[in-house]
């Protein structure tokens, strides 16, 4: 047994087998159980174990070779596995509760397995192939067959497919250049190609238009699941690239570009949020803002090390998940409330609105939320050298806070019907539980945030 068979091939096979099960209930529960088992196994296994073995652990090898290329999952990469399958389990539960499970369960496992394949393939430049397959197969997970509004998904397919040639050609340029670039001219060419590939992956301005469009064309639960996982994989791959090439991590222009693009995206996303009246598109613009903030944390890694990245990443994944769930709940709450504005308020819409407001506050880095501690460090690091970027980030976070307060004003303005407020269902309980946990973690961030540091354990050259 080895790690790629366990966490990459088995989930893919199970995902396809689950398709043959007719009963949706059995399929749903099996999906959740399989995800939890995969997380559980990762806690009791040691990959390429050296030294003494405890009675409750079992040893597996790290590498699987297929047609001359190898897939390797090391001990340091186990947190990523736990994150991906834990994410699948939590989002799977939300999809079941919101009755939107029919597409992502069970194929979400196959999608996740493809992302793990992309992250674990060696040489890692081949990850572009697996990303492309994941992108193509994510489209049926997000959209109904024969959907009429497909402009966003078409752009998503075009832009992300265009990124593949750039990454692969850069890979060819860099073959054998892990330690030193072949020559300075090739360094510029390879950086340009890699940069173009990354820009297309991360939907950086001006290739960003598909993100809000996809959110408006699909349910935020589906698009949120796919895009959060996909962007997470992109960021991990970018870190792997930076860690793998010594010249890239010593190339100042790369980090300056990250800072510049991060600032643009965070401001651009938040301006889009302020002027956005449609809830689903709001989630799209918030994703752009989130990508911008994470890019800023990568751009600052020469100054403060990469340790800021996992905290920013973790807090934003937690906050953005709540945003997607609350928007989906508002969109589908009884009486068709809220597609454009809040007109009537029942318990679900009230709780959903509260969750949405809280998630926006988390994402804007308000004190006493989980978004605050990493955002404070980000402010601190930016204040030292990059005051203009700091001003832009403060501006963008203020815009986010304005949106949150505007929603509070709308909710308060409405008339409450007391009878409707007494009805509490599964969705309300799910949202309230998650909201409560997020508030607790916000007050005591050390409960969860330090765990995300395990995400960067494998990137030895980036940790300072």
């Amino acid at each position: 047994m080895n790690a790629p068979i366990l966490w990459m091939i088995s989930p893919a096979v199970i995902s396809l087998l689950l398709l043959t099960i007719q009963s949706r209930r059995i399929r749903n529960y099996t999906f959740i159980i399989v995800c939890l088992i995969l997380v559980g196994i990762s806690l009791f296994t040691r990959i390429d174990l050296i030294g003494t073995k405890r009675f409750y652990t079992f040893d597996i090898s790290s590498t699987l070779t297929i047609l001359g290329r190898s897939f390797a999952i090391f001990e340091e990469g186990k947190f990523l596995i736990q994150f991906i399958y834990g994410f699948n389990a939590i989002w799977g539960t939300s999809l079941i509760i919101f009755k939107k499970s029919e597409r992502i369960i069970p194929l979400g496992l196959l999608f996740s397995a493809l992302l793990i394949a992309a992250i674990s393939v060696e040489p890692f430049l081949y990850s572009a192939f697996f990303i492309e397959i994941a992108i193509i197969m994510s489209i049926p997970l997000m959209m109904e067959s024969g959907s009429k509004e497909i402009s966003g998904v078409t752009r998503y397919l075009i832009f992300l497919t265009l990124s593949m040639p750039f990454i692969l050609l850069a890979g060819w340029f860099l073959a054998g250049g892990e330690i030193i670039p072949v020559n300075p001219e090739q360094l510029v060419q390879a950086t340009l190609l890699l940069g173009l590939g990354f820009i297309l992956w991360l939907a950086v301005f001006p290739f960003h238009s598909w993100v809000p469009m996809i959110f408006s064309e699909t349910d935020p639960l589906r698009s949120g699941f796919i895009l959060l996982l996909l962007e997470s994989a992109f960021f991990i791959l970018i870190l792997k690239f930076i860690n793998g090439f010594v010249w890239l991590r010593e190339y100042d222009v790369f980090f300056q570009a990250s800072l510049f693009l991060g600032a643009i995206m965070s401001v651009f996303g938040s301006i889009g949020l302020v002027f956005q009246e449609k809830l689903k598109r709001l989630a799209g613009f918030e994703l752009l803002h989130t990508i911008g903030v994470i890019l800023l944390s990568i751009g600052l890694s020469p100054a403060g090390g990469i340790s800021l990245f996992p905290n920013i990443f973790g807090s934003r994944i937690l906050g953005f998940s709540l945003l997607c769930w609350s928007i989906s709940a508002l969109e589908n709450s009884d009486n068709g409330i809220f597609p454009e504005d809040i007109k009537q308020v029942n318990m679900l819409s009230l709780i959903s609105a509260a969750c949405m407001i809280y998630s926006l506050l988390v994402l804007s880095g308000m004190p006493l939320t989980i978004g605050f501690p990493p955002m404070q460090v980000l402010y601190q690091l930016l204040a030292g050298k990059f005051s203009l970027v700091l001003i832009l980030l403060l501006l963008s976070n203020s815009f986010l806070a304005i949106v949150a307060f505007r929603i509070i004003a709308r909710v308060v303005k409405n008339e409450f019907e007391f009878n409707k407020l007494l009805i509490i269902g599964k969705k309300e309980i799910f949202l309230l539980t998650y909201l409560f946990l997020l508030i607790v973690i916000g007050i005591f961030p050390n409960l969860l945030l330090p765990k995300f540091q395990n995400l960067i354990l494998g990137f030895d050259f980036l940790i300072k």
Partner: protein
Amino acid sequence: MIINNLLIFSALASIVFILIASDWRMRIAGLSSLYIVGFIVILQVWPIALASVKLISGLMGMALLSTSQLTAYQPGESRPYPSVIVFRLLMAILFWIIISAVAQKINEWLPIPYTNLFIGLSLMSSGIIIVGIMKRFIDTIIGLLTILIGFDIIYSSLEGSALVTGILALITILICLLSGYFNDVNYEEEPE
């Protein structure tokens, strides 16, 4: 030399065919001929067994595309205005002129046969034109496949690996399958 020129001419003629044809059958026929041209180009650098994987997967993809279109809602494809055809052609020619101008320089970076590089870049740029100016989802798929053929020709000249060939073939087929997924979309054709 003559064969190389012939290959370049065939590739460009196929692109022109895709750009001006009003019927999806013609466009898919043009794309199929691009796969055949691509196969002959790749045959010069790869063994026939590996090169034929690309041809077979491409033609399988074309069969999938055609099958999906046979059952699809067709909005009644009208012949495009002459100005539309002229615009598309001029756009493609503009790109080819630019590629002719820069191909020598790019050839210094990418040490592959000039014919492969020129055909590859021409196809990639034409694919970008197709996905950029044509509206229907089938045309987007055709454009993406054109880009991928162009990239395949360039990348095959740089690296020959069974895994890469297999994955690229899989990507081609998956993209073609997507066209069937959205095939009954009712487009409201706007005058271009």
